[in-house]
């Protein structure tokens, strides 16, 4: 559908949230026990943090939970009862989600509906409506200005302009949301796209050349580059970058329980870990730098080769939360030939 534009008065946001809670399972940013920002289910608008600040964890868990039961089984005498995952009944509204989190779903949809239709994921995805909030300023390590990911899959985006939110509606689901609460929205009569462009310029989120897509030609030649070993060897192999990433989607399948009762479940897994794929076979990448290289090349070479978009929205979490601050953007630029100096000055020199 062609994009539509509306105005949402800033003091109507709370009302929108409260009323949406009657119709949707509303997920929004809130604070956890330690005061950190998280996506959660705040009960009132007072607990909602309607801000552009990025929570450490992305919003992907609402389509791909960290732990998900695939089947439960129970044995009674000679009979075995097995039950599939319970369907979740309610439509989810991701309220005030960052654009980099919202746009990720469209990217990873490709893999979940590729050769095998992943029903649990696709079911939750089909039930989810995205109401994104555009950032008024770039955040610490993010680089969405360097990636041309498609925003048009995000149902609605709210741009905080002077006095009101300019709401861009891009899908049928988005239109349904606006229609439901139409009395809260006003028509936008000005040149909305121009206003959005101005906003983006000011926020620093307007696209800047060269886009990281252009590094791919260089990356395709860089697999054997000697400097991987030295630049990616500081990787400690934890799962922070992949677990906080909105687009990383690998999982492991595990069984819990006994011969009498138990369940089969899937949990997030990470290619940077030393036991990744150890369950079906073995971890083929014997050194840590190879595992890091796999993550980077999967995002910037293999995935776009197969599906089109980069497996990255430039949210920058994998830099901010990396214990050793490995910078994926810098490494893509260096190995992709967009930049001559390696980050930190480390070279192998072989």
């Amino acid at each position: 559908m062609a994009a539509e534009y509306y105005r949402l008065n800033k003091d109507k946001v709370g009302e929108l949230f409260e009323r949406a809670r009657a119709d949707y399972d509303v997920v929004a940013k809130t604070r956890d026990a330690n005061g950190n920002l998280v996506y959660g289910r705040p009960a009132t608008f007072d607990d909602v943090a309607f801000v552009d600040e990025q929570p450490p964890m992305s919003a992907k868990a609402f389509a791909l939970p960290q732990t998900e039961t695939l089947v439960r089984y129970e044995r009674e005498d000679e009979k075995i009862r097995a039950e599939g995952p319970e369907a979740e009944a309610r439509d989810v509204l991701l309220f005030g989600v960052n654009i980099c989190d919202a746009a990720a779903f469209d990217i990873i949809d490709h893999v979940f509906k590729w050769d095998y239709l992943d029903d649990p994921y696709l079911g939750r995805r089909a039930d989810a409506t995205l109401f994104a909030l555009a950032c008024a300023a770039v955040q610490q390590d993010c680089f969405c200005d360097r990636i041309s990911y498609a925003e048009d899959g995000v149902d609605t985006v709210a741009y905080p302009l002077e006095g009101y939110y300019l709401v861009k509606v891009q899908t049928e689901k988005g239109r349904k949301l606006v229609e439901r609460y139409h009395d809260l929205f006003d028509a936008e009569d000005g040149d909305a796209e121009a206003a959005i462009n101005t906003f983006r310029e000011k926020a620093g989120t307007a696209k800047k050349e060269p886009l990281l897509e252009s590094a791919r030609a260089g990356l395709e030649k860089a697999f054997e580059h000697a400097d991987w070993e030295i630049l990616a060897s500081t990787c400690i192999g934890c799962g922070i970058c992949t677990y906080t990433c909105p687009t990383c989607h690998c999982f492991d399948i595990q069984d819990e329980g006994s011969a009498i009762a138990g369940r089969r479940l899937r949990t997030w897994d990470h290619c940077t870990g030393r036991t990744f794929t150890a369950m079906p076979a073995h971890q083929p990448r014997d050194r840590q730098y190879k595992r890091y290289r796999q993550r980077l090349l999967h995002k910037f070479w293999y995935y776009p080769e197969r599906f089109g978009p980069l497996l990255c929205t430039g949210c920058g979490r994998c830099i901010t939360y990396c214990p050793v601050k490995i910078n994926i953007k810098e490494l893509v630029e260096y190995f992709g030939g967009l930049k001559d100096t390696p980050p930190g000055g480390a070279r192998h020199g072989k």
Partner: protein
Amino acid sequence: MATIREELQAAVKKLFDDDKIDYFVGYAEDYGHTFPAILTKDSDPSRLTFDRKSYDNLANFLPELRGSRVGLICKQCEVRTLNVLAAEEQVERDKLVVVGVPCPAMLDPRKLTEGAADLDSLDESYWQEKCRRCLERNTPLADVFVGERVSTPTPAEGWPLLEEVEKMSAEERLAWWRRQMSLCIRCYACRLACPLCYCHQCFVEDNKPQWIDKSVAPENNLHYHIIRAVHLAGRCIECQECSRVCPVGIPVDVLNNVLSRDFAERFGYVSGETAETQPALTRYERDDKEDFIL
């Protein structure tokens, strides 16, 4: 007068020129962060630095470089780590060149707000907790020392966060830890950032027997963290890297501190004080206090 940065870069260049080392492990500053970097002689040392954001415990990178001659920047944290590793025969000291530095006390990244003022001038309230307890700011064991020696303030007593948790009742503590553990995403960064967690295979990775359920749930996460602390009992040198790296901000080092404090009282024991100090669980006394045994 040369800055510590210049002195350090010159010292590293000399180590490579004299063919003393194959790799140098230090901190580099780039794109707004200070981070660990592994350098070879063909690398550009001009980004090497040592500042108040040189957080990482660099001893963590030694296993990856085993067999090579390595130059390593050592703060007090690394020195204590090396002592434990030496006691456990995990370090090749003759292949190691310890580059000593005067440690200015590291800042707590969670207390730093964006665009903070001059980092050098930030006072004790911005320090990491461990730095208040530091025993010696100038690297003992140093083969090469760069920068000017500083005085070490009297180490602070007490464990503020641990003591705060201990003020709660048992039920409150269980609820508190349960809340903390509900945040855990089991990325295992606390284990992997720890220079003393060097096992090739960890109990969390075992399937048969499956000690810890793979599903992410508060009780499973708590069991993981308890066992992690048991495995570091009498070995943890309180560098607090486990807590610093946690992406969701769980103060996991509190569990380690429980044992560090108890072992200090019970066995008169500071882990990593010297290379001869044997970790507490690898030895025993016939009359160890057994107040809980029936």
